[in-house]
């Protein structure tokens, strides 16, 4: 396949990225503002011999993709706030049983049914803390339609690399913004395929015995090796155990395999950071308004920079510390009441960290950001 150029919504770019990455199984439930992803996949997947399932709810959708992933498929589901809440229990199962999958949350206003057709980034905290118990998670985001395509591929690659669910935290503005995307020709973007065991049939395969590098080779469920999968704490054969040593080492493993690779997982973009006196930190669609302000002010000679986070979790604390060390002011631009700013305050002196936000369902404009900056810089309202 040659390189192609399309003019599509962010949601369609996600579909293109998923198919490029090798998606063959999708299960979902309709919910605004994510539904276009399901609609497009219902057309595209069967055409390549893949499977599209519309399930009875988001719980079943999440469970079905986990079952399909175990058999060796690349899988995805999409949802928004309320559906994301329903998926949390099964998300924990995928974390515990170490089953790769991609969950797309095109965020809308919450809590509850909230503000369904309006933009929000209010689920960022839920992506990390939504399911119960100690665990680590990978959550990515994107600000442009092209990035939605790229980060979707990235999500599949990270899910396979770390044998874990990866969450794509998109938002309504990104999902519904139409822009040009370039789909590279096949093979131009490296893809990570399922890491399968070399253990032969008849040899004792241990599905939960990590190698030295922490990776666990998989065996397609229903194939040559018979093993047990459970959401209970389990030993290397996947059999339930409450032996304190087994419990501690499993939880440690689930946490370390992701958090110890925070530098490898961190994706970000930076603009004019070298000499920036004021740094904006943003992500998702709000980073577009932040970039507009930065470029505008740079033309007037003001030392403003932007750090756009594309990986939200595991949070790149070290990156924030390094990039913002010389800044006088750091302002986090986000569409919620301050979810990422809390993480930033954990590594920077809180007196230099500010929040620039909107949470009324209206997209944050460059003017909104400029008005906040006047206050932060002590220039009045």
């Amino acid at each position, binding site marked *: 396949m040659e390189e192609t150029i399309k003019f599509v919504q962010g949601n369609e770019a996600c579909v293109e990225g998923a198919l490029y990455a090798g998606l063959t199984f999708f299960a979902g439930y309709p919910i605004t503002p994510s539904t276009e992803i399901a609609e497009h996949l219902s057309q595209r997947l069967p055409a390549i011999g893949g499977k599209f399932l519309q399930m009875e709810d988001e719980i*079943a959708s999440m*469970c079905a993709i986990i079952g399909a992933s175990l058999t060796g498929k690349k899988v995805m589901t999409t949802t928004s706030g309320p559906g994301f809440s329903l998926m949390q229990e099964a998300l924990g199962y995928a974390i515990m049983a170490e089953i790769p999958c991609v969950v797309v949350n095109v965020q809308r206003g919450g809590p509850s049914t909230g503000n369904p057709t309006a933009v929000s980034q209010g689920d960022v905290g839920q992506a990390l803390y939504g399911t119960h118990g100690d665990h680590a998670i990978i959550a990515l985001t994107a600000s442009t339609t092209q990035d939605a395509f790229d980060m979707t591929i990235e999500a599949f690659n990270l899910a396979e690399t770390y044998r874990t669910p990866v969450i794509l935290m998109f938002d309504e503005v990104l999902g519904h913004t139409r822009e040009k995307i370039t789909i590279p020709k096949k093979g131009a973007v490296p893809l990570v395929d399922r890491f399968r065991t070399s253990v032969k049939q008849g040899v004792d395969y241990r599905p939960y015995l990590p190698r030295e590098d922490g990776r666990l080779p998989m065996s397609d469920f229903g194939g040559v090796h018979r093993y*047990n999968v459970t959401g209970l704490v389990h030993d290397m054969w996947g059999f339930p155990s409450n032996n304190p040593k087994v419990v501690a080492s499993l939880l440690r493993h689930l946490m370390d395999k992701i958090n110890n690779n925070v530098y490898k997982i961190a994706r970000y973009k930076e603009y004019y950071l070298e000499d920036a006196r004021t740094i904006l930190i943003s992500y998702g669609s709000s980073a577009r308004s932040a970039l507009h302000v930065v470029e505008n002010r740079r033309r007037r000679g003001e030392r403003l920079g932007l750090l756009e986070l594309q990986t939200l979790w595991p949070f790149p604390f070290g990156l924030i510390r390094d990039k913002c060390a010389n800044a006088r002011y750091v302002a986090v631009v986000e569409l919620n009441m301050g979810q990422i700013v809390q993480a930033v305050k954990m590594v920077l002196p809180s007196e230099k960290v500010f929040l620039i936000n909107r949470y009324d369902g209206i997209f944050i404009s460059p003017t909104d950001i400029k008005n906040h900056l006047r206050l932060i810089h002590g220039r009045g309202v």
Partner: protein
Amino acid sequence: MAVKDYIRDRFFPHIWCPGCGHGIVMNGMLRAIDKLGLSKNEIVMVSGIGCSARITGYLDFHTMHTLHGRALAFATGVKMSRPELTLIAPMGDGDALAIGGNHFIHAARRNIDMTAIIMNNRTYGMTGGQFSPLSGYGIYASTAPYMNIDHDFDVAQLALAAGATFVARTTTYHVKQITDFIKKAILHEGFSVVEILSQCPTYFGRKNKMGDAVDLMEFYKNNTTPIGSDAKKENPDLVERGIFVEKELPEYCNEYDKIIDRAKKG
């Protein structure tokens, strides 16, 4: 093969109480699988949470112990990916029909080829004997100390109405019927349901002063009757045993293959 050849003996002893009916169900199921001559590699067993759900860990198939009530949703993902595999979902009554009720009716509606085995002991055994949706009015349970006022429903009729194409019921007393019905259910192409009344002497029997395991099995003998029997006409309170329906309708995975053909033709 002998029944023991299907068992992961290193995972024994099992967690079931003395007198529990679930071991009888497991035995009957393994005999059915043996009679069908299925290889261990052809079978995927998916369970939820509860006493019944632990059956998967003990058996040497591809086994998945999942979330409370969600066995059929996980199984749907496996079956749609690998339609050639034989899917069996052993579930408890609370597991399948309270928390998992939605998945149950929708799996039946799709007529996806898998076998749901409902081990109905009319209680939540693992958590200590609370009433389930199948306990029924007038029953005592650890959360119904004054009496249960929730009405139960008929699993077989629910499955029929939801679209299951094979529905049968028996009890742990009628042990040969367990093997016979499960065998037929596995062979059936479509969503098959086998409800097996399975005694819980530890909680249901004790809370309701119905005696030990033997007494409960005698209760099954005396209070059930073949479908359409004269005894049922005389005493409508008897629970019917037998095959309620066995019909051929398009199966979901096969139907999806047609969708793929249509999509490929553009």
